[in-house]
């Protein structure tokens, strides 16, 4: 079956199939969602209004048997940043739609007020059915009920209670391999874009026949082998490596020891208490509780960075507890207890909220006096305010900047309206350059300078050195390409150090598309994606003055290194100037 684009018209509730236009043929993932958004959404459109669109696109190699290829991009105009957004997730849902031969799903228009639908993808395209019975229900329960009603094998994308309120911090949840709502296109409020169209869920069952076409099997196979070998060899990604053994939160200790793990709303970069929520501690606890240690977000992964967190008695699995979530809901709020963090994470997964944004929101509310730092119990009550859609809950669900304003806080760690992840940019300057200059708003994955600055992977860079424009730019280009390929960004650890791995990625992409891209073309491909995104943002009203970190980070020294963010504005501007 030829690949196709599904256009879901929420105005008249019709699903149309379209041929893939030539200009989109060699695109996938982020490159495709960003291109479609740039082509079809007016940059000044209201993010929740009828002119915005939500686009899903699996990556180029998604659905093939290549390792770590189970990724999906969601894109649209972000209610959180007001700019273009791509939010990447690993989920079996990605493979499900890729194997149906779907290159992209474009959701447009708006259903009648207060009507919500479930899009059921089937052989003939899809149909929209009433989904109002799931309004106001948590996503764990909703996903379970959907499985009961439509079969265990369905994969789901869903918008939660936060999205029903049009909240800027509403993400899109996807099924993990256990069927729970723990995988997320979390960042940037795309869940609200989905729900504001009247779309509550998308459901797909993986077809028996794999419709992902591989144009050049030979090249593909060769590439797959090279990539698998690189992943098996590299210290970070190999079996029994740190990611496999401790999960992503193995980073807690090293970032804390480096003085860059923000605590209590970015007021210090290190606290001995952080060891209580480290990856080592978590692995130890999981063992005690009899949980599954290594786990993957999507079927093709061979790195397995995840693990399932449960309650103390080993019951009620939350899903994964990622580094970012542990930090945001933990140390950044002065909370150093994995069980409390686990329950806060559960609430985020259930309500359909991004954990990074939510943790920052709570921390800023703590700073504003709504609750004390460290008060996990009260933090959990706040999640119920969101569940009950109270006025306070609505404020909180709109994210860090909104909440900061509501509580008169002047230390708000956001860029372009999006809250920062788990690395303070003052002692780790390169990641600060990425936060400032990516079109996405503060986002570590957009150009992960932590690899060279802290881990010495992909070269070694002194985190204190302020000349980081070029480093961040190169990482942003490579990332934009990987996010389009369908590969998990974590393959970057291996392919930055092992040339054959990079060749493997390019070979598999060429194999699928029948193209002859070279390794050198990768950066150019990424650059084009970034230019498309930047152009959209420019038309939406952004200028280089928006490529800046918040004022307090330039004024307030961060202990223990007692440094400010001192990368000059010219260096930040150099990222996008030729």
């Amino acid at each position: 079956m030829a690949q196709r684009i599904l256009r879901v018209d929420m105005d008249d509730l019709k699903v149309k199939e379209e041929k893939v236009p030539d200009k989109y043929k060699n695109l996938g993932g982020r490159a495709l969602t960003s291109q479609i958004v740039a082509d079809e959404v007016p940059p000044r459109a209201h993010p929740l209004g009828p002119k915005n669109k939500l686009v899903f696109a699996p990556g180029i190699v998604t659905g093939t048997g290549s390792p770590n290829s189970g990724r999906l991009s969601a894109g649209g105009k972000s209610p959180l940043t007001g700019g273009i957004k791509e939010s990447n997730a690993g989920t079996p849902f990605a493979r499900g739609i890729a194997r149906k031969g779907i290159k992209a799903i474009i959701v447009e228009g708006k259903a009648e007020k207060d009507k919500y639908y479930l899009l059921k993808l089937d052989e003939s395209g899809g149909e929209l059915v009433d989904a109002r019975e799931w309004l106001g229900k948590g996503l764990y329960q909703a996903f379970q009920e959907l499985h009961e009603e439509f079969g265990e094998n369905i994969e789901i994308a869903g918008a939660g209670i936060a999205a029903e309120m049009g909240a800027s911090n509403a993400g899109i949840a996807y099924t993990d391999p256990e069927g729970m709502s723990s995988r997320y296109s979390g960042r940037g409020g795309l869940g609200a874009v989905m729900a504001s169209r009247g779309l509550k869920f998308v459901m797909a069952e993986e077809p028996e026949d794999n419709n992902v076409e591989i144009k050049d099997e030979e090249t593909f196979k060769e590439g797959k082998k090279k990539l698998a070998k690189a992943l098996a060899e590299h210290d970070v990604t190999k079996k029994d490596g740190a990611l496999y053994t401790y999960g992503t939160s193995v980073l807690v200790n090293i970032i804390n020891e480096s003085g860059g793990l923000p605590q209590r709303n970015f007021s210090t970069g290190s606290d001995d208490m952080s060891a209580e929520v480290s990856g080592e501690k978590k692995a130890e606890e999981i063992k005690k509780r009899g949980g599954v240690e290594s786990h993957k977000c999507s079927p093709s992964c061979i790195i397995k960075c995840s693990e399932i967190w449960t309650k103390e008695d080993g019951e009620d699995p939350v899903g994964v507890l990622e580094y970012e979530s542990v930090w945001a809901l933990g140390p950044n709020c002065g909370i150093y207890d994995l069980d409390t963090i686990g329950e806060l994470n559960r609430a985020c997964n259930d309500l359909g909220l991004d954990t990074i944004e939510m943790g920052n929101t709570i921390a800023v509310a703590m700073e504003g006096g709504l609750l004390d730092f460290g008060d996990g119990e009260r933090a959990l009550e706040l999640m119920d305010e969101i569940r009950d859609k109270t006025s306070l809950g609505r404020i909180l669900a709109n994210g860090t900047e909104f909440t900061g304003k509501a509580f008169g806080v002047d230390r708000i760690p956001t860029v372009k309206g999006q809250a920062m992840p788990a690395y303070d940019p003052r002692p780790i300057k390169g990641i600060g350059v990425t936060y400032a200059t990516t079109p996405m708003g503060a986002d570590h994955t957009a150009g992960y300078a932590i690899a060279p600055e802290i881990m010495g992977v992909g070269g070694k860079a002194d985190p204190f050195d302020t000349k980081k424009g070029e480093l961040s730019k190169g990482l942003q280009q490579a990332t934009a390409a990987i996010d389009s390929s369908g590969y998990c960004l974590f393959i970057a650890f291996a392919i930055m150090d092992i040339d054959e791995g990079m060749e493997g990625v390019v070979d598999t992409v060429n194999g699928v598309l029948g193209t002859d891209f070279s390794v050198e073309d990768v950066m150019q491909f990424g650059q084009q994606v970034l230019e498309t995104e930047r152009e959209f943002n420019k038309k939406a009203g952004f200028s280089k003055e928006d490529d800046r970190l918040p004022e307090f980070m330039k004024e307030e020294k961060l202990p223990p290194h007692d440094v400010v963010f001192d990368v000059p504005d010219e260096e930040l501007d150099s990222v996008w100037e030729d």
Partner: protein
Amino acid sequence: MKTMSRKVKIKLFAQISEVAGKKELELEGETIGDLLERLVEDIVELEEVLFKEKKARSLKEDIIILKEGRNIDHLKGLDSEIEEGDKISIFPVVGGG
């Protein structure tokens, strides 16, 4: 010139602490190199974890050493001098995000 040994706290993480069977210890030395020599004398299992070869003392690439939160790669490597009370943290290369 008179040199003085300084006592510092060494913290071990992830697989390194598992191999060593402890998370923390105190040792004396003048440079990071000295300290590591004493460390592998104390805990012989760490020798092959930390060093490439027995004789030529060069660190394995997958080891990260911080002195007071600064990677010794960006100081003077194994020759980085230590001061009384410094905190030295030793990690295997880790990833995540």
